[in-house]
């Protein structure tokens, strides 16, 4: 679906993006994470054919962004990180404008606009003026605009910045829906929690270099990172530490007697969780609940990036 082959962008003597290699399959949701100035926007702009790579190439469904940018524009929906809307234009007219820019036939524009309005929950705002929408609505409108020509690949540059927690949840649901309909989504962010449970793959970029890429599982395994198991128990909390002492992979145990909880940090895979629980149960800990915090992207992020970018 999307292949980056040595994608590089150099500004003067600053290498903003350096030799990115990546492969995404249809239906993947790729979380592109990195600190400010890491090169996320630069990468997305190159994929959106707005910037010409200094070296390397990217193929969208086999179409090169360097040699066939015009075809590529038909295959992607691009949502910029900062965007403006026009004055004196209504919501449906704004969408009609982009539908025409994407060369949708005139008679198909009406139904398609209704469809994306429905999808982004803006139907009630159809006749409103664009500049009067709230920030979150504008964000949704911009997303609606990128869906008009039904592109197989969506490039979303920090779509959740400036949204309140509820709007973020709604965005997440929307993205899940789009993923189910078979779209590949390339989404950049530095807010990690918003990506944690939507993404099937994650890439961490710092100072233009991809420091880690793959499924969240793979990255955690590769980086030897801590998985956390949060446990609530009615009794036997004091037994946990002795039971696990010396057990392979267990790194630390934090018990909170007042709250009847414990956090166990361990290095391993998901398959280790039942064994661990069994040990605890057999040892006499009255476990009433256990939550595995696999996608600890925050910790991953902080460990893999060292703030090299000013």
């Amino acid at each position: 679906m999307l292949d980056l082959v040595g994608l590089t962008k150099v500004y003067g003597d600053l290498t903003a993006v350096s030799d990115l290699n990546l492969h995404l399959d249809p239906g993947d949701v790729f979380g592109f994470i990195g600190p400010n100035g890491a090169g996320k926007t630069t990468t997305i702009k190159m994929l959106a054919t707005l910037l010409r790579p200094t070296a390397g190439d990217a193929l969208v469904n086999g179409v090169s962004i360097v040699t066939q940018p015009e075809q590529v524009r038909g295959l992607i929906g691009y949502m910029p990180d900062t965007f403006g809307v026009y004055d004196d234009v209504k919501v449906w007219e704004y969408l009609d404008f982009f539908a025409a820019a994407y060369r949708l036939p005139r008679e198909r524009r009406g139904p398609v606009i209704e469809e994306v309005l429905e999808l982004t929950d803006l139907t009630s705002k159809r006749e409103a003026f664009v500049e009067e929408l709230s920030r979150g609505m504008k964000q949704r409108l911009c997303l609606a605009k990128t869906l008009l020509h039904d592109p197989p690949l969506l490039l979303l540059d920090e779509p959740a910045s400036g949204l309140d927690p509820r709007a973020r949840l709604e965005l997440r649901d929307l993205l899940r829906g789009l993923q189910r309909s078979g779209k590949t989504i390339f989404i950049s962010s530095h807010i990690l929690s918003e990506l944690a449970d939507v993404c099937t793959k994650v890439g961490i970029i710092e100072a233009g270099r991809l420091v880690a890429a793959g499924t969240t599982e793979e990255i955690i395994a590769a980086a030897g990172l801590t998985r956390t198991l949060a446990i609530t128990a009615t009794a036997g909390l004091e037994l946990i530490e002795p039971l696990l002492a010396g057990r392979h992979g267990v790194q630390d145990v934090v018990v909170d007697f007042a709250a009847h909880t414990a956090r166990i940090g361990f290095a391993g895979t998901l398959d280790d969780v039942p064994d661990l629980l069994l040990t605890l149960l057999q040892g006499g800990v009255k476990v009433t609940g256990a939550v595995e915090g696999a996608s600890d992207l925050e910790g991953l992020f902080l460990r893999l990036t060292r703030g090299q970018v000013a």
Partner: protein
Amino acid sequence: MRLDNPIITRELRGSLRGNRAIWAYTGYALALGAVFAWAWTSARPVDIDALLGNARPAFASTFVGYWVTSQVLLLVAAVTLRGAGSFAREREQQALDSLYAAQRNPSGVIFGQVGAALVAAVPLFILGLPFYAAAWLLGGVYPSEYAAVLALLPVCVLLAAVAAVGCSLYARTTGQALVLACGVSLLIGLGGAIVSIAAQHTPTESPSRSYLPVVLWAALALLGVALAWADILGRRIALTTDGTVAWRPRAWWLLAVITIAIAMRSRSMELVEPLVVLGGLGLVALMVLLGGEDLGRTPTRWWQIWRHAPASAPAFLVVLAGVAAALSGPMFDGLHWPHPIPNSLIVALACVLWGQWLHLVLGRQTTAALLTGAGALFLLIIYGGTGAAAFPIAAAVCGGLLLGLRVYTDRQTSAPPANPR
């Protein structure tokens, strides 16, 4: 033909919404009417001879002199204001990226913006038509004058629109674009006004067509500037988006054919105007230059002038000025060789070859074009000094402004911008 350019549609929707537009149009029609009425009353009582076409009433010259002039200026102002806001405003609103990413074809954006700017002028022009009709009924205005005006208006307006959109594309802010565009449009408007006055018959003159070739040549020269702008803009936009598309308007060739046809027609009317013939030749050469390949890939020889485009295009506009000036008579008798045609050809050739050579030696388009321009202007000073040089000079100033703009924006874009966050 169905108009399906999104930018023009959006412009129409925006401008037709609300009462603002309708009040503006009403005000405009009232203003036109007031000028017309003033011209009409100042020419009273109506002269029966004039109505029968035997003599020219005072009204006609006032009409052509003031009314048409004011319409040219108004229309130019309208498209300038809209055109200057086009790209610069979208850039300020941060809406440009989305637009570029949505367009399969970059030239659609530029056509759309120029078209949207022209949209402002169309109703204004149509509102003026009844007044032309009234003037026709009142008599005394010659058909050729109408023809000249009708050719002049669209050319000036198109030129102003293209220039304003160009300024907008290059400028960083809307304010800057507005100042630049107004500067360029002032020249265009004044040029248009001068032509409209030049197109007038003076009562003592027997009806002669000798002014017509000059007017047409001036109009074509203005159109040439407009298309040169369009071409350079096309390249600019191609570079902004992906750097591979080269936009080459083939309308150039159509213009060449028209120019030559006009020149031939003048000949058959035994009104051989060297200006027309040479202007036509110059435009053809200009087109050849602008239709050329980009520099790069394979080495270019200095005499392959068609491969040096677009650097040589502004220089060539100045060359045209030199040619026209050479024909207009000597400023220093001693330097003037009294054979206009070979003289002009020598001037033109010298400028072109010099420009190409400079381009190759210096490797910098802008510097070469500026130096060529300077050389051509030097020749202009030597050979110029008469009224006919006014339009080529205006064209040269436009070219100079364009170059200045290029140098300025090159400097702006080569410096790395501040970190976006």
